[in-house]
């Protein structure tokens, strides 16, 4: 009998089976359900109307309003209000529900909030009403986006059916050049395989480049799995994962605990003889700054080919490109520089904690001095919500994840996807360019 992938391992355990095989349909227990403001309203109604309103035992629900908050209009204020009432009601019923609301100021973009607050652990099954829920795979969890009907049914039953995905292994070797980030690495892959190149699959990242990468950068890789059509992205947990969890107060710092934790990870990794539908090898040292042109994330070319593209807006934010490392990298380029005339630079930290760190470490001043505009945490303009919508014909270079037609505003506006470093370098130049080596 051949070995299993980390994804098959997790799904077998979650469905009480010895092993599962790709394409098999299973029903798995769900550890954590993420809910935000855009996709939860009908799930809440469904729970009440069809299932007597009780959240399933054993299910943790993490509530992170982020898309249209702080409320952009009356309709979104009502969505937020509905979520708040749901939290209050479920707390009274004794449900395992953890809210990160705006009251008190500790809130942010779901996919950065959940790891930051310690709700993502290796080996778990996590679903959420958002396609980028695949982000949590960076911690060795199986995580994937679901719809509203599914979210409502998970609330009620704590379980969900899955088709066990085939796994694609992406093995990355070599040291990434200084002007290249995980975003460029993902763009290289999706540029090669296309937006349906990993359809229904788990994208498993391994290799020396990955095991030395920090968690923020790993999260960029798993976050964008959906842009290649994948069901999930996953990276085996290791001591960098452990250190992140210690840092966030989830794990104890002592030596023996660490040792036993790392030993227990033996169960949360792929066997050496696991079966893959495809294996892709990449030499990261040969990468250069890349950009996805409108209107597909797979429309990838070197940034150096787009010197003629002038930009009206540069955007650093979102679940893909609004983490601490993203701002740290952009600030390195922007320090002591001014952005070009005629360019707006929007800086949108993903969470309140990140925003606080930006102020504390002087990065807030770096961005402001360069001429940036700072926003409160929100998904904002990434999905064309608000706070930076594009006018007809405008162009934006963005550290976010999608550049579909009309994604950030008018259908005739254009979004170019790139790493935070490339976004910063382009904001200074006024046209698209990668950062210096």
């Amino acid at each position, binding site marked *: 009998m051949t070995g299993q992938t980390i994804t098959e391992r997790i799904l077998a355990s979650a469905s009480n089976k010895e092993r599962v095989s790709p394409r098999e*349909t299973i029903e798995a227990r769900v550890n954590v359900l993420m809910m935000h403001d*855009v*996709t939860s*309203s*009908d799930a809440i109604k*469904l729970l009440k109307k*069809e*299932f007597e309103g009780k959240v399933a035992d054993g299910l943790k629900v993490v509530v992170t309003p982020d*898309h*249209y908050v702080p409320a952009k*209009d009356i*309709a*979104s204020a*009502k*969505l937020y209000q509905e979520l708040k009432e749901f939290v209050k009601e479920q707390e009274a019923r004794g449900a395992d529900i953890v809210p990160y609301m705006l009251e008190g100021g500790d809130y942010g973009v779901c996919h950065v909030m959940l790891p930051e607050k310690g709700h993502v652990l290796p080996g778990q099954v996590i679903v959420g*009403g*958002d*396609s980028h*829920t695949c982000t949590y795979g960076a911690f060795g969890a199986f995580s994937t*986006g*679901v*719809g*509203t*009907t*599914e979210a*409502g*049914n998970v609330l*009620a*039953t704590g379980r969900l*059916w899955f088709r066990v995905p085939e796994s694609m292994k992406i093995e990355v070797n070599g040291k990434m050049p200084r002007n290249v980030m995980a975003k460029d690495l993902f763009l290289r892959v999706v540029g090669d395989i296309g*937006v*349906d190149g990993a*359809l*229904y699959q788990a994208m498993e990242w391994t290799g020396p480049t990955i095991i030395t990468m920090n968690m923020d950068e790993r999260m960029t890789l798993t976050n964008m799995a*959906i842009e290649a*059509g994948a*069901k999930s992205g996953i990276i085996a947990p290791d001591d960098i994962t452990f250190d992140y969890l210690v840092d966030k107060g989830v794990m104890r710092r002592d030596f023996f605990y660490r040792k036993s934790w790392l030993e227990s990870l033996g169960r949360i990794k792929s066997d050496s003889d696991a079966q893959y539908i495809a294996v892709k090898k990449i030499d990261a040292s040969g990468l250069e700054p890349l950009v996805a042109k409108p209107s*597909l994330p797979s429309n990838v070319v070197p940034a150096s080919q787009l010197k003629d593209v002038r930009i009206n807006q540069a955007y650093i934010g979102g679940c893909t490109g609004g983490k601490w490392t993203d701002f740290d990298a952009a600030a390195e380029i922007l320090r002591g520089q001014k952005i070009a005339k005629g360019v707006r630079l929007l800086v949108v930290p993903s969470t309140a904690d990140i925003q606080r760190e930006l102020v504390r470490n002087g990065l807030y001043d770096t961005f402001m001095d360069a001429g940036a505009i700072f926003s409160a945490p929100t998904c904002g303009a990434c*999905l*064309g*919500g608000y706070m930076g919508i594009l006018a007809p014909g405008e162009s934006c270079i963005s550290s976010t994840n*999608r550049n*579909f*037609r*009309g*994604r950030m505003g008018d*259908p005739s506006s254009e979004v170019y996807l790139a790493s935070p470093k490339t976004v910063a370098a382009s904001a200074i130049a006024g046209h698209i360019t990668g950062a210096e080596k």
Partner: protein
Amino acid sequence: MKDTISGKVYVVGDNIDTDVTIPARFLTTMDPAFLGRHAMEDLDPKQYPVPFLNRDGTCDYRIIIAGRNFGCGSSREHAPIALHAAGIDAVVASSFARIFYRNCVNGGLLLPLESTMDLTAFFKTGDEGEIRVADNVADIINHSQQQLFPSRSFGPVKEIIEAGGLTAYNKKRLGLV
């Protein structure tokens, strides 16, 4: 689930994303009637000169015929809700983005059919189409061109589709109906 769906078809290409299907500026509600009036609003008119919706917001089509990766992008269930509210009952595609496919199966509003080959060359917008479901597959018929194509098998999700969606399926299993 309806066994037969017939009406005019609307033909689209590859990678139709959910931002085009229902743009994010309309996501502050899940009201089907409202979403239906904005279904496919951001389709590029240069590429799709025949509008999906009429000027008064009505839609002449009942079936969508698509190429690869239909419904890619966001997990928003607003997408199948909008298409269904506009009048669509089935989407035929050579492949689906997985969350959109699941939303069709679990939501129980739209019938998702995977074709065995790309059918966009065999249908043109406005053709009279018909879907006939039999056991675990369906026939996809173009009456205007007098052609018939098989769908791929629904596989194990047929049970959920037959129940009318995941909620009905779960309620039946839990003995709530």
